[in-house]
């Protein structure tokens, strides 16, 4: 178990100026984990999440900054001396060795006594329920079993830090959900500080105690799953976290600076959001609304005059059983709404949707940064670095 600290970590592949390698692959990455924390790095492909993990592992050198594991700067330490274990997306098992030998490999290299090797491999195998597979070769295993062996190989080493690079990406959907729960359980049992890389925001939300959202090599936000959902720092995080994605509408700020308007919607800016608009110089903002926060309103004939409502034509109806997804054309945006399945809607119908004022998100029209964020419940730890 260990505290991992990344201070101003930079990765640059040193390409020629102007080429695609010249930009920083990872820029000023700052993070301080708690002891035994489960941190998820998430973002679209090419965002630098894997590179960051590979720098923690020592498979890539950091171009700048410090990486500390339990206080020791490991930037110049080779992977084998960092006291970490890594699980690869491809499992990366040794094909010519039995499951037992795969798991025992690191111990054998350390010249661990035979009975100790046996004890530790058996222990890990029993945690993962793979005792019956120990004599098999990797090619005789299913994908899920191989993933367990890869986890077992990491557990056997009793490392200070676990690094998992998209470990579930090669598994089918059902197995992925099972293994997700199992890895979380395993983490709770062993209490080892864990870094987990994924591009899947559902995986990130369900597994991470804290999530690092990355884009273009930069951290966008470091927070708990709940805070990411409720208080996204910017439009990227807002759109990335949550399924279906948040809807964004371009709105004009009314002259009293307390309302946000479009041709077919009008929202009231309350509380911190309203205060933020007072000092905001631009005339337009982005309004973000999550599909699950939109309500169907029985048309009372009042039209779009009411506060916190929008009107539009239904373009797509997708009944999913428990809920019905509708896509509504509001001004020039396609808004997705998640409605109760008992609401009867038809294609082409004009409907009114409402959203509670406190569920709205405001973003600067240019910088796309959030406006009027209420103080988060817990201070993000990265700020304390």
């Amino acid at each position, binding site marked *: 178990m260990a505290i991992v600290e990344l201070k101003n970590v930079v990765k640059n592949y040193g390409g020629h100026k102007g080429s695609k390698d010249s930009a920083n692959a990872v820029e000023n990455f700052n993070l301080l984990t708690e002891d035994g924390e489960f941190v998820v790095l998430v973002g679209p492909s090419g965002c630098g999440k894997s590179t960051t993990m590979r720098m923690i592992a020592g498979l890539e050198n950091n171009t700048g900054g410090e990486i500390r594991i339990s206080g020791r700067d490991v930037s110049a330490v080779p992977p084998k001396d960092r006291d970490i274990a890594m699980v690869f997306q491809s499992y990366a*098992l040794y094909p010519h060795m039995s499951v037992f030998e795969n798991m025992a490999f690191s111990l054998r*290299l350390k010249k661990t006594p035979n009975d100790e090797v046996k004890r530790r491999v058996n222990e890990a195998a029993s945690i993962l329920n793979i005792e019956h597979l120990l004599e098999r070769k990797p090619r005789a295993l299913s994908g899920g079993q191989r993933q367990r062996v890869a986890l077992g190989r990491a557990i056997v080493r009793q490392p200070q830090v676990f690094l998992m690079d998209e470990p579930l990406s090669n598994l089918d959907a059902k197995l992925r959900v099972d293994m997700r729960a199992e890895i979380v359980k395993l983490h709770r049992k062993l209490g080892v500080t864990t870094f987990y890389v994924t591009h899947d925001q559902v995986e990130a939300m369900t597994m991470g105690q804290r999530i690092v959202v990355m884009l273009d090599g930069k951290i966008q936000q470091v927070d708990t799953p709940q805070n990411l959902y409720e208080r996204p720092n910017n439009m990227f995080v807002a759109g990335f976290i949550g399924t279906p994605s948040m809807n964004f509408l371009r709105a004009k700020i009314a002259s009293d600076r307390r309302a946000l308007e479009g041709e077919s919607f009008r929202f009231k800016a309350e509380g911190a959001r309203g205060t933020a608009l007072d000092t905001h110089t631009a005339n337009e903002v982005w309004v973000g609304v999550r599909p699950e926060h939109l309500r169907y309103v029985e048309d009372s004939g009042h039209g779009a005059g009411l506060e916190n409502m929008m009107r539009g034509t239904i373009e797509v109806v997708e009944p999913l059983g428990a809920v019905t997804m509708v896509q509504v054309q509001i001004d020039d945006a396609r808004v997705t709404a998640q409605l109760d399945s008992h609401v009867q809607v038809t294609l082409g119908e004009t409907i009114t949707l409402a959203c509670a004022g406190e569920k709205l998100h405001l973003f600067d029209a240019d910088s796309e940064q959030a406006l009027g964020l209420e103080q988060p419940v817990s201070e993000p730890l990265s700020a304390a670095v």
Partner: protein
Amino acid sequence: MTESRLTNTLLTLLTYAVAIVMFFPILWMFLTAFKTEQTAFDIVPHFLFTPTLDSFKLALAQGNGYWHYAFNSALSAVASTLIGLVLAVPAAYAMAFFPSKRTDFTLVWMVSTKFIPAVGVLIPVFMVYKSLGLLDNIWGLTMLFTAMNLPLIVWMVYSYFKDIPKDIIEAADIDGAGTLQTMVKVVLPLALPGLASTGLLALILAWNESFWSLTMTDHKAATLAVFIASFKSAEGLFWAKMSAASVLTVTPIIILGWFAQRQMVRGLTFGAVK
């Protein structure tokens, strides 16, 4: 339907014809080896004749005797292959797993040395060997065979190493294996079928080599290629004996190839990835 069946039949016949044309010289060599010199020289080809082992008996005793040449061939082929592999494995390992900006160039350059006809460098090599006293020396010849095959061995081993997923090397790295341990315990076992077929090819090329054998050796270090050539002497051509000598030369390598082929096809599959 009938047209495609006709095409099929014609293609099959063509295949047989090509195969027979290609196999015929070998067949003829085997047949001639069991003939007397007289039948062998006859203008009218003989497919049916009374076989005799006389040519073999005479061929075995030719010069320093068959076994002298066979020993030289075996020693130079095996030694050059082993030395080649020992030199090529670390080179290919570095190029496959720690490539630099010049790796591609180096590979192409190495192979490009094979573009030069051997005869183009004969004189300088001969002079150097003469002054070093390596003429008609089996180790001198082995060194030439090694140099001759090295680019090919490096290239082949490199491509087998490239097939090993990088993740496995990184996993070994994290598990605590040093470069040598990764090579010996992970990479070599995985590349073993590739190394075996590379070694076999190098062995065959060295065994069959005749240009350097004929020019750089005399009696002491002479190989089977020299042995065969010795039947074309001032007194004339001895077809039957030459054929017998050829049969004695190609048989070991054909048997070896036959066994090794089964061994290699069994190759490992990368069950660990995907």
